[in-house]
């Protein structure tokens, strides 16, 4: 069983907390300590953003995180090394890389998949690679048993849900709103309507993210699905912190989210 499957199995009826940070933000040295701090504060799965020069699906907060990381020279290669370093002390928490396809294309999917296997990456989410364009790419991931994580959206049609159901592994990520990461227009009743439709075709756990900014919303969303993804809010906390207090600030925030999600 993969680390992602094990994690959801161990959670049983409880809901997963899935925080997102951008690798290399605020600095390459801080990423692994932040990952450990997220786990210590209750993260069940980690989503690690791979910075990209043109993050089309991201709002200003994660765009700025990407820019901070790129200025410090972070690349897909160095992100993979960060995961390797994280795995020296943590062999159980799943790590999912999230980003855009081009850095992977530049490395080559074969090399990338092999490196993911070596360093202990469990899943890969490429925002701009829909199932239609993913067959060759994801064949490489499959060879190493790395889960392709797919996004589903409020606009996704029934037939596309079925298509994703066949290809997805690990969990499926439902984008809770029409918009970019960090937007503020999340609609709980729309999520409540959509999840049962997804469940008709998808047996994997369903995580929901985009626009979850506080414990109250995290709890409300957790009641509707299997896992809650929180990104921009955490990245914002990183931006608002200094190197000295960033670990403490992020830990406090994530602990609060964890408490909320545990009530679901």
């Amino acid at each position: 069983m993969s680390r992602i499957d094990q994690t959801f199995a161990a959670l049983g009826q409880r809901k997963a907390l899935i925080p997102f940070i951008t690798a290399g933000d605020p600095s390459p040295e801080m990423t692994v300590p932040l990952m450990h701090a997220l786990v210590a504060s209750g993260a069940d799965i980690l989503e690690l953003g791979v910075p990209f020069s043109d993050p089309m699906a991201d709002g200003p907060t994660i765009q700025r995180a990407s820019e901070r990381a790129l200025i410090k020279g972070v690349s897909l290669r160095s992100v993979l090394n960060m995961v390797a370093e994280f795995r020296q002390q943590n062999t159980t928490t799943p790590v999912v890389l999230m980003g855009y396809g081009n850095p992977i294309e530049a490395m080559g999917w074969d090399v990338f998949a092999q490196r993911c296997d070596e360093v202990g990456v469990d899943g890969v989410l490429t925002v701009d690679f829909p199932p239609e364009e993913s067959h060759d790419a994801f064949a490489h991931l499959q060879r190493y048993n790395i889960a392709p994580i797919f996004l589903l959206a409020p606009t996704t049609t029934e037939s596309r849900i079925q298509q994703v159901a066949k290809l997805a592994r690990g969990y499926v990520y439902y984008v809770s709103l029409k918009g970019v990461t960090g937007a503020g227009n999340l609609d709980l009743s729309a999520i409540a309507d959509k999840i049962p439709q997804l469940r008709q075709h998808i047996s994997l756990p369903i995580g929901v993210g985009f626009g979850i900014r506080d414990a109250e919303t995290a709890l409300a969303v957790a009641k509707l699905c299997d896992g809650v993804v929180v990104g921009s809010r955490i990245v914002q906390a990183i931006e608002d912190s200094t190197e000295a207090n960033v670990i403490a600030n992020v830990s406090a925030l994530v602990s609060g989210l964890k408490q909320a999600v545990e009530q679901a």
Partner: protein
Amino acid sequence: MYNYPDSTGHFGQFGGIYMAETLIPAVEELRDAYLHFRDDAEFKAEFANELKHYVGRPSPIYHAKNWSDRLGGAQIYLKREDLNHTGAHKINNAMGQALLAKRMGKKRVIAETGAGMHGVATATVAARYGMECVVYMGAEDIQRQAPNVYRMKLLGATVVPVESGSKTLKDACNEAIRDWVTNVESTFYIFGTAAGPHPYPMMVRDFQCVIGNEARVQMPEMIGRQPDAVIACVGGGSNAIGIFHPYIEIEGVRLIGVEAGGHGIASGSHAAPLTSNSKVGVLHGNRVYLMQDENGQIIETHSISAGLDYPGVGPEHCWLKDTGRAEYVAINDDEAMRAFHDLCRFEGIIPALESSHALAHAAKIAPTMRKDQVLLVNLSGRGDKDINTVARLSGITL
């Protein structure tokens, strides 16, 4: 027979629909609507009528005899897209997409723009059809194409400055995509060039093919035959594919695309993905040759002309390069400037800096050719928008 893209939007390995899931249903809806209406008699008639009476087509072809004589070789003919309403070829496509938006019931249109010509064209058709219009434009381009910014505002559009990344065309594209994903149901994205996710490269090409279709009739009328070569500048590639495509199956006509060489290919400071042999990559919805570093990050481009200042190029040009049917070259900033001034002084035509790249390449090869040979250059736009840039480079404040 040449028949691309395939049904999934691919030109060989190029093209595709590399978009976030939220937008996939939107591009599918657009594809279905376009495939339906492109064969619809009423749509075709309205488009033709608008091009004739509103845009002012057909655009003439002009023999630039003074300039040709000075160059002392091949005869240069200009396809006068600069004479279209709003001053560039961009209106052909904006008009086609607006008519489609109208039929799809979309009341809000958005666009990205570099030089501002596509933004002006979109603002124009939005005013014409009573649609709300928002145009995204890089902050740097807002500086260098100031007259066009005010034109858009006069036409009722909202111009949103984009401060991220290199503050140029690619960043304006990113921001327009972010708007589209947020307002996907109400909004039609009028994309300005023959790139992006399927069906845009095909649809924009089809709307721009009016240029080449006219030229194919006009050239035999003027000189009794087709030209020896067709030359066009390539940003995303819409004016070039519009004039190339109808010539693809006509043997003996060379097709030459001219990219922005900036400070020279060797300097690395340019916007010429094809000429500089960039690697294949994925950006803005399609797989194309793309200027990037070894880590797959998109690199900042440079061109004197905002409309060519883009790190990628449409998928059909990538395909035409690989198959050898078209050739691609680069022209540097200073060469383009020289052609700009020459056309002003010897022909009384102020060309866009984008188009000046195509003109400069014609000026380069004409002297190596016989006097009875003919080069057809797509004069894609007029240069009024560029007078501030040109003045600044000449050390003049207006």
